[in-house]
């Protein structure tokens, strides 16, 4: 028989037993729910976190495509570069290691600064690789490699460096590459690789995606201590495509030197008198730094600046596109430092400006073919229309002068073009009106941005009545038409537009537009839609400029039986000449300050018998088109036809 208290105890025991069991059930239930929550509901979040732990993605940059000229000569390629990497761990005395390395090879200060920034910003304290420098020469590598035992904590890695073997010669065309800072925009993951370059200018920029190829990814499996357990290529790289340009580097190099030379003489920098003078010359940019140019007084002068473009009139391929002064794109591959950059940027001659496409100049007399064509097409004048030039045209209160002080007398259109008579064009311009002239200019490609493979082209200005009204809110005046008729005033063109205009005149059938890429198939162009007879007449007139007795460029014939050039000179006034100055007598071009000298222009084509190439030459503040620009064009053609 059980005692009463015994019964009571049993009752308590079972009650408490049940209570505790319930408690246990609740606890185990909540733990199960927690697991369900972690593993089933929030699974994806934790899976991602686990992946982030496990893998480390690295971008593998593809080999950038090359840029070649029409003969497959290299304009831009890749060279093996060596980087120095520190295998860092907590126990190292970093300063001491850097000091020891500096004793063996020279590391530039910027790299060391960058290295310390990286060291400071590293994400954790696990052993890892930190880049010391990317600019290691073959010599440095062997110096360090010999002392391998002294530096167990460093490693070399190979990388590709962009090189431009042609240097300054085609800098404006190839452009350059530079480091891309926000890589995570291209790829989802945060990239730990810092050596990826993208095109920043020129063809490098325009064809960046083709040249760049496809990035690959390497996936490293890393332990919690940062050791790489496994490394595999996650996505393959695809090397970039090569770009074959239409340039002919032989011609390009020749053109650049010819342009820089102008009518000056070459002299070696070794000459001690020259050395003296060079000390005071800043911002001197030369294609070849062993020689400088001197004028007739044996004073060192800056090389001529300007542009030369040679274009194939059948397919628009540009064989040579020179802008002087230029810059050497290689300096951008070596991690351009600030000093170098400010030096280039602040250079008074603006070497970064691509004068061929972004420089705008008044076309001067080179526009006269367009004005003549506008007159002929409108039917207002014909081949026989004659005007009388007495050296100036009175208009309102002021006189509009011809370049020939004493006038050309009575002449027809062909003679007017041959002798570049301004008065004839004043008379003609007033008759046709600015709108017709502007229309013809646009037809010939002025005031237009072409689909050329370099982005920063200028549009230039082709003024007409509407344009003036829109810009200034003032009506067009007839005096402005007179100025426009001789390519002065508002009108502005780029050298590329001038060569395109010349190509269209020389081609006669199609509206050729320029390209820098070698075209392998026949490109189709729109019809030019100008009367063939008129074009033939204008071309005849351009021939007269060279071969005619009174031609403005008669001194610069190519002079062979088969090949002769045709063209038009242009001398562009940069500052207005006042009536007073004119009476005193004009100051000779050479005696004016450089900035106030005339631009010398020449446009032309060759051979006359069967036009093939068009050219435009612009020499900034070079003087007269006939004595400075025309001989350059002749020499270029001579070189081109290997005469």
């Amino acid at each position, binding site marked *: 028989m059980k005692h009463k*208290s015994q019964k009571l105890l049993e009752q308590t025991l079972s009650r408490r037993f049940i209570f505790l069991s319930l408690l246990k059930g609740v606890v*185990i239930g909540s*733990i199960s729910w*927690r*697991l369900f929550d972690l593993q089933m509901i929030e699974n994806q979040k934790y899976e991602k976190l*686990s992946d982030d732990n496990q893998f480390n993605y690295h971008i593998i940059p593809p080999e950038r495509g090359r840029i070649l000229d029409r003969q497959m000569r290299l304009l831009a390629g890749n060279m093996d570069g060596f980087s120095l990497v520190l295998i860092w761990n907590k126990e190292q005395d970093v300063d001491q290691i850097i000091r020891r390395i500096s004793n063996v090879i020279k590391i530039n200060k910027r790299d060391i600064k960058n290295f310390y920034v990286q060291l400071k910003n590293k994400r954790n304290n696990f052993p890892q690789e930190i880049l010391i420098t990317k600019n290691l020469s073959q010599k440095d590598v062997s110096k360090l490699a010999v002392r391998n035992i002294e530096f167990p904590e460093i490693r070399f890695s190979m990388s590709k460096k962009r090189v431009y073997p042609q240097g300054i010669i085609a800098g404006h065309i190839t452009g350059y590459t530079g480091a891309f800072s926000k890589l995570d925009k291209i790829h989802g993951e945060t990239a730990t690789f810092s050596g990826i370059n993208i095109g920043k200018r020129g063809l490098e920029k325009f064809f960046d995606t083709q040249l760049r190829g496809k990035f690959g990814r390497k996936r490293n499996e890393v*332990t919690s201590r940062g050791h790489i357990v496994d490394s595999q290529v996650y996505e393959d790289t695809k090397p970039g495509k090569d770009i074959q340009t239409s340039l002919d580097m032989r011609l390009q190099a020749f053109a650049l030197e010819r342009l820089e030379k102008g009518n000056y003489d070459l002299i070696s920098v070794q000459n001690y008198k020259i050395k003296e003078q060079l000390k005071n010359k800043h911002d001197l940019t030369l294609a070849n730094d062993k020689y400088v140019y001197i004028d007739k007084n044996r004073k060192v002068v800056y090389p001529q600046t300007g542009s030369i473009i040679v274009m194939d009139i059948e397919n628009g391929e540009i064989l040579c596109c020179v802008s002087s002064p230029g810059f050497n794109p290689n300096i951008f591959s070596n991690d351009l430092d600030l000093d170098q950059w400010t030096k280039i940027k602040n250079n008074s001659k603006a070497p970064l400006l691509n004068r061929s496409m972004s420089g705008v100049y008044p076309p001067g007399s080179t526009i006269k073919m367009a004005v003549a064509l506008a007159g002929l097409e409108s039917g207002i004048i014909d081949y026989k229309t004659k005007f009388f030039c007495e050296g100036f045209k009175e208009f309102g209160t002021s006189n509009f002068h011809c370049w020939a002080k004493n006038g050309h007398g009575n002449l027809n259109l062909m003679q007017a073009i041959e002798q570049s008579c301004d008065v004839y064009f004043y008379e003609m311009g007033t008759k046709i009106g600015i709108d017709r002239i502007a229309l013809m200019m646009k037809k010939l490609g002025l005031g237009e941005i072409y689909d050329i493979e370099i982005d920063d082209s200028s549009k230039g200005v082709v003024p007409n009545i509407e344009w003036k009204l829109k810009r200034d809110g003032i009506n067009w005046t007839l005096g402005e038409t007179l100025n426009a008729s001789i390519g002065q005033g508002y009108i502005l063109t780029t050298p590329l537009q001038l060569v395109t205009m010349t190509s269209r005149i020389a081609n006669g059938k199609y509206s050729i537009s320029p390209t820098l890429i070698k075209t392998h198939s026949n490109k189709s162009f729109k019809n030019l839609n100008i009367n063939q007879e008129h074009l033939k007449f204008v071309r005849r007139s351009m021939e007269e400029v060279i071969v005619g007795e009174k031609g403005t460029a008669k001194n610069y014939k190519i002079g062979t039986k088969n090949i002769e050039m045709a063209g038009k000179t242009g001398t562009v006034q940069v500052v207005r000449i006042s009536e007073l100055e004119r009476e005193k007598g004009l100051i000779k071009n050479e005696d004016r300050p450089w900035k106030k000298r005339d631009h010398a222009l020449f446009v032309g084509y060759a051979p006359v018998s069967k036009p093939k190439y068009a050219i435009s030459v612009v020499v900034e503040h070079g003087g007269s088109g006939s004595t400075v620009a025309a001989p350059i064009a002749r020499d270029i053609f001579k070189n081109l036809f290997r005469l």
Partner: protein
Amino acid sequence: MNFKQNKFATDSLLKIFFLKALKINWLIVFCTIFLGIIGVGALYSAAGGSWDPWAKKHLIRFLSGLILMFIIIFLPTKLFYKFSFLFFITCLIFLIFVKFFGVGNIQRWISFGVINFQPSELMKLGLILVLAKYFDNLSRIQLDKLFPYIIPFILIFLPGFIVISQPDLGTGLTIILLGLAILFYVGISLKFVLFCFFVLICSIPLIWQQLYEYQKNRILVFLNPEIDSLGSGYQIIQSKIAIGSGGTFGKGYLLGSQSRLNYLPEKHTDFIFTLISEEFGFIGSMSIILIFSVLIISIFKVSFKIESFFSKILVFGIGFLFFLYLTLNIGMVCGLLPVVGAPLPLISYGGTSLFTVLIAIGIVLNINLRENRI
């Protein structure tokens, strides 16, 4: 009759043994063996697919522990009753000894030549034994009063605080919670329980001051693991990542990236459950909990059926010890409880806790066998 009895008595020992063996609670045995095998497998994976350094040792210990367990099954139950106080005192002496002559900078281990062991683990068993004996000796009426509970309180808190001061918060808390649960079970006044609860809450600031710096940190980090994501919060964060990334079916045996790449801390001891969760997913972790639940329920069933008060409390205590092990460990690894250091019985690497658990199961099976016979 005599003859018969004699015959029965001389009936081959083997037959008696088999008859007894049949009556063993085989469910508990199977659960134990199963968990042990899971432990060996998990440790094999923790070493990156290698028997060394943990899996082989664990297997050997487990097998020898099993033998010990079977020996205990066939010992007379009286023995536990007789030696319970002695066992408790021995454990206590060891604890104090460890406090002064312990191995390592954290004084948990005692060293006998090649064998190192943690007296604090054995203390859990010692406490259950001594409490069971104490309450068994009390008259039923006395249990309703408060006075007789004073000695048990000393028996609980003395070793509890020694262990906490080792410092080992996890084991210490386990000891205290275990003791309190037994007091509650035998019928301590509910009013008193509520009073104690109140006092405990009020004394939290006092306790906080007594805690070691690292223990404070652990609790702070538990409340917000992001405080120190590379330091003490790292364990909780990485453990949660491992469990969560396991998903439904897990990453596959030996394929857990968190454990393989060493992101998991203590993956072979306290955090072994994380490894299983990562490699076998929700299915795997629930299976572990299920097997443990079956084991715990079976033990409680034994306790419920037994008449003897001593055995009842003893088995209940062991069942509750299992429950505490399980919840503290899993609660800790999945971020529900602070990281206090509690092994997962039978699966975690560690000899003393393995032997303690196997001895405890042996005692349960022993009592189950005797009581069945009665």
